[in-house]
């Protein structure tokens, strides 16, 4: 059978006779890499563009149409020492990029307008105490209006839109008081300018927008960056399938290019990348990523196969099915939809704050107006003072209090290997006081390891590893990896479903099922000791050995559990796996509460029960069976190796082998929430000081501008404290 790699799905036309592809590249981190890659790729004839984006860790390539095969670029990059894979922009990331650009454009407009309005305002402020003629002052005010009004109309769009959305949903958010404040300040300034009054607040209004846009843009940029990294990680997983393009011809194509009805080949040791059902062949499959069950399942004709299943022994032909055709998937999707609906009711800290804040401020302004009228002021003066109250309380600092902390905190989490999927995840994570762990793939690592390597003589172990290289079986692959074997035994022959054997120096070596090696007698012992392990036997002549292979616990799992306990967080295991396997893990980690053989619906039921008791649950899971409970929990986390559905549902995704990011994320979230609250108090404290000044009617534009920038800078500086190194995790 002939295998070709087909990347045509990712190639797009870029102008006349030029084709374009984007590659995600792993390991690009400095100027040296950038130059090396660009020169290395430009050296290929007919390449017209090779440009590295160091921020997003991607390469854009263009070449003359029809001259080159994209697979060649990937090979070339591999020669240079970089792993690369074509990258397809997800729609979520494309929106983030567009949003980020729009905010930057708004910020640019607002910043330039602020500078120019300030240039006009400062002469007015100083002219008021010297010799500026009223006509000149009016002229400067009109010029300010000319700049500020169109700029505010453009740069204020993000706030006006969000405020309108909130109001039409009959709720309020922080953007409502911001929009009201800006509009009133501008409107009153126009009226005052027409009336030749001394004060106009164009500068304050446009400066407010600028400060708030800085906060918005930083927040958005962090989110965009996280999306880019997540997109790269997804691309570098290089999920492909061997698709039949002819009766006997297969092509290795990206998963995105596979459609329902296609037939794919699944060889031993491969992870299935599509959902479908078996049409030919028999094998054992490992569905631990789907159900959490580590025991292999036998697959024959008609057996449904889910993306993420690992094929163990035989070769299968799988017909790809449309989504949710499979019963398990349909059930999980239904549970997931219900859980997601419930979750959307969470109200963010910022919205809760503004719900309290907006009525108080608006009432204060109204009382000020009425108070002045009663005290004998004219209506016009009273309204001007009332609006001054609104301007000075306009939640500039309040609007920055949360996004700035969020930006800095997500930056620190990013460094600790945690990606944020949702904006309010930090607040919810900080409240978590009970953690539910899934076992398979979460507390344990998704790959297999040999647990009793120390009991076996090292020369025997090495020989077993070399022999294992000749087998496709995942357990054999784990043995080979544990040994670090690189030179296969050339004469080795594989017997399907049994094992491999070879003759070395006149002695027969066998590796495989215990019965294949004549080592059944040793098995009973090993399984009693470790019921979860897969047993593989090795024989050299008459010597027999048993290797026990299993998914190992994450290296720092024990320390992380201890650290969580030290933080007074409740811990339990909810696993879909069998009881003995769960007990073993619970004992090893010192977790008293566990439940085994749990279905997705049971997991949700347990979470609901904890919720009723008032616990805020953090669910950490990776399997497809965890997806509904990830959505049902107060906040959720997944390892990067998780099933697609779970990863998309989880609020946070952590990278790498250690479990430590879970604790690191909780720590920085708690710290961030503390700072957010502190910022809100700072903003309120500023208002308490400023409002009496405003009510007394002596707020000049100069005071408004100084107070506004002073409080904003204070809040931003306080947010930067989220950056400082958090205490040691364990």
């Amino acid at each position, binding site marked *: 059978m002939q295998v070709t790699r087909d990347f045509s799905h990712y190639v797009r036309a870029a102008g006349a006779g030029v084709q374009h592809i984007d590659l995600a590249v792993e390991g690009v981190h400095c*100027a040296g890499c*950038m130059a090396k890659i660009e*020169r290395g790729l*430009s050296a290929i004839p007919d390449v017209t563009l090779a440009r590295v*984006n160091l*921020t997003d860790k991607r390469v854009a390539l263009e070449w003359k149409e029809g001259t080159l095969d994209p697979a060649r670029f990937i090979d070339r990059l591999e020669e240079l020492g970089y792993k690369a894979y074509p990258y397809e922009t997800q729609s979520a990331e494309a929106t983030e990029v567009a949003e980020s650009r729009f905010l930057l*454009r708004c910020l640019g407009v607002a910043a*330039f307008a602020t500078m120019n309005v300030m240039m006009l305002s400062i002469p007015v402020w100083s002219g008021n105490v010297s010799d500026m003629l009223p006509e000149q002052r009016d*002229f400067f005010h009109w010029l300010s209006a000319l700049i500020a009004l169109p700029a505010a109309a453009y740069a204020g769009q993000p706030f006006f839109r969000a405020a309108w959305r909130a109001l039409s949903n009959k709720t309020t958010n922080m953007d409502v008081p911001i929009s009201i404040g800006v509009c009133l300040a501008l409107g009153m300034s126009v009226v005052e300018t027409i009336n030749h009054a001394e004060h106009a607040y164009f500068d304050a209004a446009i400066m407010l927008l600028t400060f708030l846009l800085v906060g918005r843009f930083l927040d958005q940029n962090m989110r965009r960056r996280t999306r880019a990294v997540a997109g790269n990680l997804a691309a570098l997983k290089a999920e492909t399938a061997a698709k039949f393009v002819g009766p006997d011809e297969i092509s290795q194509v990206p998963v995105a290019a596979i459609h329902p009805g296609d037939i794919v080949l699944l060889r031993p040791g491969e992870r299935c990348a599509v959902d479908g059902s078996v049409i030919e062949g028999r094998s054992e499959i490992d569905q631990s990523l789907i159900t959490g069950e580590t025991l292999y399942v036998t697959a024959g004709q008609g057996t449904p196969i889910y993306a993420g299943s690992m094929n163990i022994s035989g070769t299968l032909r799988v017909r790809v099915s449309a989504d949710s055709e499979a019963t398990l998937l349909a059930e999980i999707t239904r549970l997931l939809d219900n859980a997601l609906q419930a979750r959307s009711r969470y109200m963010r800290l910022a919205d809760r704050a503004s719900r309290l804040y907006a009525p108080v401020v608006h009432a204060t302004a109204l009382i000020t107006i009425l108070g002045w009228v009663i005290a004998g002021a004219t209506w016009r003066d009273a309204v001007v003072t009332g609006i001054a109250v609104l301007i000075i309380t306009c939640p500039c600092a309040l609007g920055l209090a949360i996004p700035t902390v969020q930006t800095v905190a997500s930056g620190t989490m990013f460094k600790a290997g945690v990606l944020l999927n949702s904006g309010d995840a930090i607040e919810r994570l900080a409240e978590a006081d009970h953690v539910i762990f899934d076992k398979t793939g979460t507390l344990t690592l998704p790959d297999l390891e040999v647990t009793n390597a120390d009991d076996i003589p090292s020369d025997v172990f090495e020989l077993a590893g070399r022999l294992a290289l000749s087998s496709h079986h995942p357990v054999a692959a784990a043995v080979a990896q544990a040994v670090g074997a690189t030179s296969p035994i050339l004469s080795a022959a594989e017997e399907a479903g049994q094992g491999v054997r070879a003759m070395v120096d006149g002695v027969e070596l066998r590796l495989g099922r215990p019965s294949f090696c004549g080592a059944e007698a040793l098995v009973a012992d090993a399984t009693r000791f470790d019921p979860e392990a897969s047993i593989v036997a090795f024989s050299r002549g008459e010597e027999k050995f048993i290797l026990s292979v299993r998914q190992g616990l994450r290296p720092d799992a024990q320390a992380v559990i201890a650290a969580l306990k030290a933080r007074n967080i409740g811990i339990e295991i909810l696993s879909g796996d069998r009881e003995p396997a769960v007990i073993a893990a619970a004992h090893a980690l010192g977790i008293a509460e566990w439940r085994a053989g749990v279905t997705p619906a049971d997991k949700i039921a347990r979470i609901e029960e904890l919720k009723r008791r008032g616990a805020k649950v953090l669910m950490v899971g990776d399997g497809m069976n965890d997806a509904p409970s990830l959505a049902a929990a107060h906040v959720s986390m997944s390892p990067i190796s998780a099933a697609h559905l779970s990863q998309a549902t989880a609020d946070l995704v952590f990278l790498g082998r250690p479990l430590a990011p879970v604790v690191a994320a909780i720590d920085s979230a708690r710290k961030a929430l503390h700072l957010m609250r502190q910022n809100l108090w700072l903003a309120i404290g500023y208002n308490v000081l400023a409002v009496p000044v405003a009510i007394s009617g002596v707020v000049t534009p100069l005071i408004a501008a100084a107070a506004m920038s002073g409080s904003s800078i204070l809040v931003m500086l306080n947010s930067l404290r989220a950056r400082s190194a958090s205490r040691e995790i364990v």
Partner: protein
Amino acid sequence: MEILVYLVPLALLLGGAGLAAFLWSLRSGQYDDLDGAAWRAIADDDPPPQEAPAEMAKARR
């Protein structure tokens, strides 16, 4: 104060030019890769021939 007749339009023009330059730089993708751009500024334009992998790759072929 007649000087305002020149200075005010001049100031607005300069401000407008700055904004136009910013919008142009944004549209031409100059903010897409801030990390890379920082390094590109100090990278050698023409590497010495004996070190250039591009040249070696061509020679091998």
